Every structure is written in structure tokens, then in C-alpha cells.
């Protein structure tokens, strides 16, 4: 994850904290220490409560006294602003940088209110309702709409796409919408968010403040992202 701004407009605040496990990847959310842990704990794919921030550097965790007398405590630097906006790349699977799935239109819509894809996709299970659908190519490339109704292979939007959806046009979906309380499932290395899983109440709590949903001209299958702030930040007094 990459910090791209502070919601209140201030400067980033950096702090160094001890960690309780080796940090080999940067941009991973860390949580307040679990009981009996030596420092901040790495989050999980489904839990980011009491988040402190994402690490900017790496460290090797050690507990034993060192023969050279050096301090064995492992430190990492974090951006700790509670309202830090994190850019989270969307992944099509559990592995980082998995391409987002393309869904070609199989039935055209002359009203621009429906995106109907093949029977391989059932938009009600896992549900994409309240998520977003956007054009990857075709006449509606780059146009984003909120999904308000799902039924089998059809997604319905309330505000029409500006142009008819044509058979063969590719669309992509993400199971969350900006400025709503959403829960994300993170990828294996905890640096990206999975776009292939439906919203669930038991996953990592973020508030999505915006989306960066790209089309074919910007390699949208690998560069689309969501912007989110932590809902349960350890330093947020209102949490």
C-alpha cells in the first residue's frame, strides 16, 4: 500500500516502532501489539483493526542477545496518521498483481442500464451488488457506475452508461463503492486488495474514499486501485 495523502491536508507523521516479526515487504499494514508480542504485529488478510500504519522499510526480527553487543530490537518506520489515505492496488486473486478478470458483454443493452455477461458469472453469488462496474474497452471504456441490482448474469445500474453496451465489450467489477463502510480482503502479502471477493462483515475494515478504476489505455487490469482510510486506527480517539 502506498500513502497518497492525508485527509485533513496535513503532513505525514513518521514514527519508528518495534515489530514482532520479520518485515520483508514494505507497504504492509501493521496493528497494535497483540498480547505478549514484542512490538507491532502484521495484519492479516481479513483483519486490520487497530491499524498503526504501513511500514516504509524492512527489518529482521531477533530476540536473542547479540554477540557484538548490538541492540536486537527490530525497528520499522511507519506513517501513523489516522486519516492517511492509502492507495491499494486491486488484485484479481490472492496472489499480488493478479490481473482483474474481464467480463465480456453477451447481451447488448440499448438503454445502457444493464451489463449482461456470460453464464460463467453469477453476480448474485458472490454478490457484486453495491459494488462498481466499469468499462475496460469499447464505447464505455473508463466509465464507472454503481451496481444497484444483480440477477444471475445481469448487473443493473441506476444511472445509464452514456453509450449502449455492445456484445464483446469488456467490463470489470469491484465489490465496493467509495464513501461507504466497506470491508476488504487483502492479498497474501497484504499489500493489495482482492477484487474477486464480495464484501463481507468479517474482513479488514477500511473506508473507501475513492476509486482509481482504469481502462485499457492505462493497463487497468493491473493498475486499478482503491483509495481508503483505516476505519479502526489505533490512534483515532473516535474509534
Amino acid at each position, binding site marked *: 500500500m502506498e500513502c497518497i495523502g492525508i485527509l485533513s491536508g496535513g*503532513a505525514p507523521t*513518521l*514514527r519508528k516502532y518495534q515489530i514482532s516479526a520479520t518485515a520483508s515487504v514494505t507497504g504492509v499494514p501493521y496493528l497494535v*501489539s497483540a498480547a505478549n508480542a514484542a*512490538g507491532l504485529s502484521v495484519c492479516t488478510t481479513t483483519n486490520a483493526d487497530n491499524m*498503526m500504519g504501513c511500514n*516504509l522499510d524492512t*527489518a529482521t526480527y531477533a530476540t536473542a542477545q547479540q554477540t557484538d553487543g548490538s541492540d536486537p530490537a527490530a525497528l520499522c518506520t511507519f506513517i501513523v496518521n489516522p486519516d492517511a489515505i492509502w492507495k491499494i492496488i486491486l488484485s484479481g486473486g490472492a496472489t499480488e498483481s493478479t490481473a482483474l478478470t474481464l467480463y465480456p458483454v453477451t447481451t447488448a443493452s440499448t438503454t445502457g442500464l444493464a451489463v449482461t455477461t456470460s453464464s460463467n458469472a453469477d453476480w448474485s453469488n458472490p454478490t457484486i451488488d453495491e459494488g462498481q462496474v466499469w468499462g475496460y474497452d469499447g464505447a464505455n471504456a473508463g466509465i464507472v457506475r454503481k451496481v444497484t441490482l444483480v440477477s444471475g448474469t445481469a448487473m443493473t445500474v441506476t444511472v445509464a452508461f452514456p453509450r449502449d453496451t455492445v456484445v464483446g465489450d469488456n467490463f470489470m467489477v469491484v465489490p465496493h463503492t467509495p464513501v461507504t463502510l466497506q470491508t476488504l480482503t487483502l492479498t497474501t502479502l497484504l499489500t493489495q486488495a482482492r477484487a474477486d471477493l464480495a464484501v463481507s462483515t468479517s474482513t479488514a475494515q477500511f473506508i473507501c474514499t475513492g476509486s482509481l478504476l482504469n481502462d485499457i489505455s492505462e493497463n487497468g487490469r493491473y493498475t486499478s486501485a482503491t483509495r481508503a482510510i483505516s476505519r479502526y486506527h*489505533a490512534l483515532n480517539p473516535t474509534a
Partner: protein
Amino acid sequence: MANDSAYVHTTDWTRPRNAAAAAQSRGKPSKLSRGAWLADLVALRKVVTLCFKCTARWSAKANHYLPFEAIPGWGKCVAECDGCRNESICTAFKAQEK
């Protein structure tokens, strides 16, 4: 006058903010020189944050460090200076591949 109900302050270490405070690095040990502390951070390739005074006295280039923007467009950050331990506006430096 005797006080039979003295208040004893206790810290609730289960509160997230207190737990986080306990894990915060204390920075440069008091008996370690600034240069030695910075050398330790550089050896471990940590992010180094320095105020404008300490930045002028430390060669980032010689240590293969470059200033970086913690947030794109923000050249400064709020941090405890790794040189003088003052909380101030700092420049963050990141290690580069040698």
C-alpha cells in the same frame, strides 16, 4: 492531614494507544553519539528522518541515501529527528541500492 484514599494512577495497557506507545522506538540512546546512532540506522538501511540542521551535517549521498517523499508531493514530514531527537519538520531519506 492524612489522606486515606490516595489515588494510584495505573496505565491500561490494553488500550491500543498505550500498547502502541510501549512499542515506539525511544530513538538514540542517551550515551550514543548522533553519528554512531545514524551509522547504526544506515547499516540496517532504515528510513532516516533529519531536521534541517542535522540534514546539513550528514551526507546522504555518501551513505547511498536519497530524500524521498513519504507522500507524493510532500517533501517534508513530521517526525522525531534521528540526529537531535527533536520533534520537528524533517526530511525523510531512504536507502538506495549500492
